[in-house]
C-alpha cells in the first residue's frame, strides 16, 4: 500500500492553495535529508527555518499525517511534500531492513494507543445524565412548542400569499421573504428559514421564476402538512420532516448505531464556501455490495481544514451509518475504516430508464429530494448541439447540465467505447462528477 495515491488526490488533501503550492515545492528529493519507507509508513527529515530538521511521517493506510513543524495547517506543507514525492519518485525512498527509525515508531505507537482509547470511548455506553435528562426534555418541549407556533403562522402567511397571487409576490422586496425567514429562525425552524430565503432569491430572478417559485411553495406546503400530521407518519418520514424543519441529529449518538458494512467507493466530492467563510464539503459514496449511495457532509470555518480522509477515486472497508429520514442519503463514516487508494469495479445501472425509475421511487419516498446520486455502468457521452448528453446502448439520454466544461475530455476518454459515470440528477439535468474509463477513475471536478 505504498503507491497508488496520485498527485491529484494528494493535492486535494491540502487545507488551502498556499499549502498545496508549498507542498509541491517540497516534493523534491534535494529538500529532504532522509527519506524512508516501510509497508505502512513513509517518513522524511526536512530542514526548515528551525535548528533541527522537521520530522514528517505519513501513516499510509488512512492516510494520517504527523510533522514536528509548528504550522497550524493540517496536513502541513512538509506532509504534503513528502506524500507528493512518494507518489512521484518512490525510488527516492530507502527501505531500511530494520524498519522505521525510533521517532517514527514512537509516533506509530502513540497513534495506536490514541485510537484504542477512542474506540473504547465510542464503545462505552453513553454516560447517564439523569440530572440533565429532565432539563433536556423540558428544552425539547419548549422547542416543539415554538416550532409549532411558528409554522402555524407561516401557514397563514402562505395562504395570504396564494390569495394575492405569485405575480404580486414577485413585486415584493426581498425583505418580505427575509423577515418571514427571520421569524422562522426565531421559531427554531432554520430549515424552513433557508427555504424562504431561497424563494426570495427565485422571486427576484428572471426566466422561469414562476414555475420554480410555485414548486418551492408546493414543497413548503407539503412540509407544513407533514409537520401538522407528524404523528400519523411512518418513522422514516417523521425523521425526514423533522430534519427538513431544522432539527439536527447528534452525530455522537448516531455513531453508536450499527451501520452498513461494505466496501464503499468514493465517487465524488464538492466543496463550497459561503460569504461567511463557512466551508462545506459533500462526499458521495457508493456501497459496492449494497448498491446504496450515501453522502457525507463536512463543515469547516475559515482556515480550518475540511476532512481529507475520503479522496475521490479511493475506497474503504468500513461502517456507514445513515441519518434517519425518508430515502436516507446523508450518512457518517464510523472510525476505524481501512482505506485503499483505488478500487477495481465500477458500480451502477446499465440503462438511463432504470435511473429514472429509481428516481421516481425515491421521490415517492421523499418528496423533498433535491439531488439524486446516479451511477451508470456503460454509457456514452454524446454531443447534441452545443450541449452534452449521456446515452445508453438503447439510445435513451440523460441531458447533461448546460455549459458542462468537461464534455470533450470525457468524449476523449470514451473514444466511442462505453464508460462508467457518476453524477447527480436534479430532475432535469445530470451533473457528472466522475467517470471510469481505461480501467481507472477520473475525477471530472479536478483539473483533468
Amino acid at each position, binding site marked *: 500500500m505504498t503507491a497508488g495515491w496520485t498527485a491529484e488526490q494528494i493535492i486535494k488533501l491540502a487545507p488551502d492553495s498556499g499549502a498545496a503550492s508549498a507542498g509541491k515545492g517540497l516534493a523534491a528529493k534535494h529538500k529532504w535529508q532522509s527519506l524512508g519507507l516501510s509497508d505502512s509508513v513513509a517518513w522524511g527529515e526536512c530542514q526548515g527555518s528551525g535548528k533541527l530538521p522537521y520530522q514528517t511521517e505519513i501513516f499510509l493506510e488512512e492516510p494520517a499525517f504527523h510533522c514536528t513543524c509548528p504550522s497550524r495547517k493540517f496536513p502541513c506543507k512538509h506532509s504534503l511534500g513528502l506524500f507528493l514525492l512518494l507518489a512521484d519518485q518512490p525510488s527516492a525512498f530507502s527501505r531500511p531492513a530494520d524498519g522505521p527509525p525510533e521517532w517514527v515508531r514512537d509516533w506509530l505507537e502513540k497513534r495506536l494507543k490514541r485510537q484504542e482509547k477512542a474506540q473504547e470511548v465510542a464503545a462505552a455506553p453513553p454516560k447517564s445524565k439523569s440530572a440533565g435528562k429532565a432539563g433536556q426534555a423540558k428544552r425539547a418541549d419548549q422547542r416543539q412548542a415554538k416550532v409549532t407556533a411558528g409554522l402555524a403562522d407561516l401557514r397563514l402567511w402562505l395562504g395570504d400569499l396564494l390569495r394575492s397571487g405569485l405575480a404580486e409576490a414577485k413585486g415584493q422586496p426581498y425583505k418580505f421573504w427575509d423577515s418571514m425567514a427571520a421569524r422562522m429562525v426565531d421559531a427554531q425552524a432554520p430549515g424552513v428559514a433557508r427555504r424562504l430565503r431561497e424563494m426570495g432569491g427565485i422571486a427576484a430572478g428572471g426566466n422561469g421564476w414562476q414555475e420554480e417559485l410555485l*414548486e418551492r411553495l408546493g414543497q413548503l406546503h407539503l412540509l407544513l402538512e407533514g409537520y401538522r400530521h407528524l404523528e400519523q407518519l411512518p418513522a422514516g418520514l417523521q425523521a425526514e420532516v423533522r430534519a427538513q424543519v431544522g432539527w439536527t441529529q447528534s452525530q455522537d449518538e448516531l455513531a453508536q448505531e450499527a451501520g452498513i458494512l461494505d466496501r464503499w467507493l468514493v465517487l465524488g466530492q464538492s466543496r463550497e464556501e459561503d460569504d461567511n467563510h463557512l466551508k462545506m464539503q459533500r462526499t458521495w459514496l457508493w456501497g459496492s455490495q449494497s448498491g446504496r449511495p450515501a453522502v457525507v457532509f463536512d463543515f469547516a470555518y475559515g482556515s480550518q481544514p475540511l476532512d481529507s480522509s475520503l479522496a475521490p477515486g479511493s475506497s474503504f472497508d468500513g461502517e456507514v451509518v445513515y441519518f434517519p429520514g425518508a430515502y436516507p442519503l446523508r450518512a457518517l463514516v464510523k472510525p476505524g475504516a481501512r482505506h485503499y487508494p483505488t478500487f477495481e469495479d465500477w458500480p451502477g445501472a446499465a440503462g438511463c430508464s432504470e435511473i429514472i425509475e429509481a428516481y421516481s421511487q425515491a421521490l415517492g419516498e421523499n418528496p423533498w429530494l433535491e439531488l439524486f446520486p446516479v451511477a451508470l455502468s456503460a454509457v456514452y457521452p454524446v454531443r447534441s448541439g452545443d450541449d452534452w448528453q449521456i446515452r445508453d446502448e438503447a439510445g435513451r439520454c440523460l441531458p447533461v447540465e448546460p455549459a458542462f466544461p468537461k464534455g470533450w475530455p470525457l468524449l476523449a476518454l470514451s473514444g466511442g467505447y462505453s464508460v462508467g459515470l457518476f453524477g447527480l440528477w436534479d430532475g432535469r439535468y445530470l451533473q457528472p462528477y466522475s467517470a471510469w474509463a481505461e480501467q481507472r477513475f477520473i475525477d471530472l471536478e479536478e483539473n483533468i
Partner: protein
Amino acid sequence: MDKRILSNALLGTARQPFQPSTFSASEEGLGDFMQSLAGENSEEALLGAAAAGFLFERAGVTLPVDPRPLLPPAPAEKLQLCSARSRQHLNRLLHGRHSEILQEWLAALARAGKRLPAEKLPEMFGLMESQPDLAPLIEPVLGERGRWLAVQNPPWTLYAGLDLEAARENWETGSKASRVAFLKRLRASDSDQARQLLQETWASEGADQRAALLGVFERNLSLADEPFLEEKLDDRSKEVRRVAAELLARLPGSALVGRMMARANWAIKYNPAKKGFLNIGLKKAKSVFQVAPFDTADSSMLRDGIEPKSGFQTMGDKANILYEIIAAIPPGYWTQRWQAQPLDLIKEAANSEWAGALLLGWRHAIQRYEAGDWSEAFIRHWLEMKDRDTQPDYFLPIYNGLAYPQFDKLVEKALAMDSEPLYDRHPATPLLNGYKRGGNWRPELVRAVVKSIKRRINSNVTYQWKVQKGVLHELALHAPPNMTDELAEGWPEDSPNWPGWARDVQEFLSLLELRQEMLKEINS
C-alpha cells in the same frame, strides 16, 4: 406543469378561487388525484395540486432518445499509453506553464513511441491552435484516439491525419482561425496545392483574411511561390502588400531580392585598406564604406515594401531606405561580393557614418536568413568592444542561426575575458540568457557556469537579477538531466549571502529534477 394551476397561482385565489373539480377524473395524469384533493381552503388545495403536479412531472419524465447510431469507436492503438506518473508530469508542465520543458517532454514521448493520455487531448488541440509551433511535436503523440477525437470537432479535423479532402470542407465553411490552420497544414505537406487553393478563393477573401492566409506561405517558401507573391505586391490592401514583400524578402533568388541588390550596389561601395598600408591614418582620411543614399523612395521601392518614412528615432528617412534595402539581402551576398569576413565588415561598418543603417540592416537580414556565421561575428565584435554597456543597441549579441558549438566557444571566451565570477554585467551573462535554442549544453560548460555562480555566492555583492532569475533558469532548461545529482551538491549554504540565493538555486534544482524524472519515466 399544468397551465391552469400555474396561472391560478399567479393570479391569486382571491381573484380566482381554485376548483379541483374542474379537473375531470378521466383526464390523463393527475385528474384522478385532483378529485380527491382535500384542502381546508382554496389556497391549500392549490398548493397541494402544485406539489403533486411537480412531483408527477419529475417522476414521469420521458427521456429523449437519440436516433443516431453510436459513433464507430476509435481504432486500436499502435502506440503505448504514457504512464500515470507521466500524466502527472504533463499536468505539472501545463499547470506551471513550463513551455520549454513541455517541448522536451513531447519530443521524448514521441521518441519512446508513447502517446498522450486521452483526457488531455482536447487541451492539446487547444495548444496546437494557440501555439502552432507545438503542433509538429504534439501530432506524433496523438495516437489513434487523438485522430478519432479530431474528427468529432470541425476545428480539429485537420489533425485527424486523414487525407486532406476530409478537412477541405472546413476550408470552405470553417472559422477564420481554423482556415488559416488548415492552409498552414496543407502548406507543410503540399505547398503547391495550398497555393492553388488560395488562388481559387483569393478574390472572395476579405482583406485581413487575405493577409493572414498569405502569411502561411512562410512555411516551405520557394521560388514556385514567387509569381503569385510578386502579383500581390500590387494588391489593393496595404497589409497584403506588406506580407508579400516580407515573404519575397526572405526568398533568396527572388526578383525582389535582385532589385534590392541592384539598389544596394548603386548606393554602397566598399574599399578596404590594402595590406601594408598604415590603417589608422587611412581610416581617418576616408571611410572604407562609401554610401550614396537615395533621397526618397521611388515608386518601385514603394512597391517592394520599402517605407518612405523612418520608424526609428535614431535614423532619418534616407538611412531608413538604406536599412530596408540591406535587410532584404542574404548576408552571405556581401561576404561573397566583397571577399571579406563578416567580422571585418562589421568592424568597418561600425566606423562609418552609416553605421546604424548598415548594422541594423544586417541584423534584420540575419533574422530573415538565419545566418549563423554573421550572428557569431556580431557577438565576437560585441565581446571585443570597450564600454559594451554604453554602446548603441545595434551592437548587441544576436543569436539567429547560431549553432551550439559556436555558442559554446563564445561563452568560453566570454568567461575567460572577465575572471570575476558571474554577475549581471559580466559579458557571459547576456550570452547565457540570450541563446534560447533547445537542447542540452556541454557538461563542462554547465560545470564552469555553476562553479562561477557558487563563487559569486561566496563573494559579497548585491542581488544579481540576471544571473539569479536568468542564468539559473537557462541552466535548469539546458543542463543534461543526468547531471542533476552532481549539480545538487556543494552549494555554499553557509555563506552569509546564501539566503538571497537559496530560493533561486532551489527552483533551479527542482526544475532540473523534474526534467530528469519525467524523462526517466517516459523511458522506463
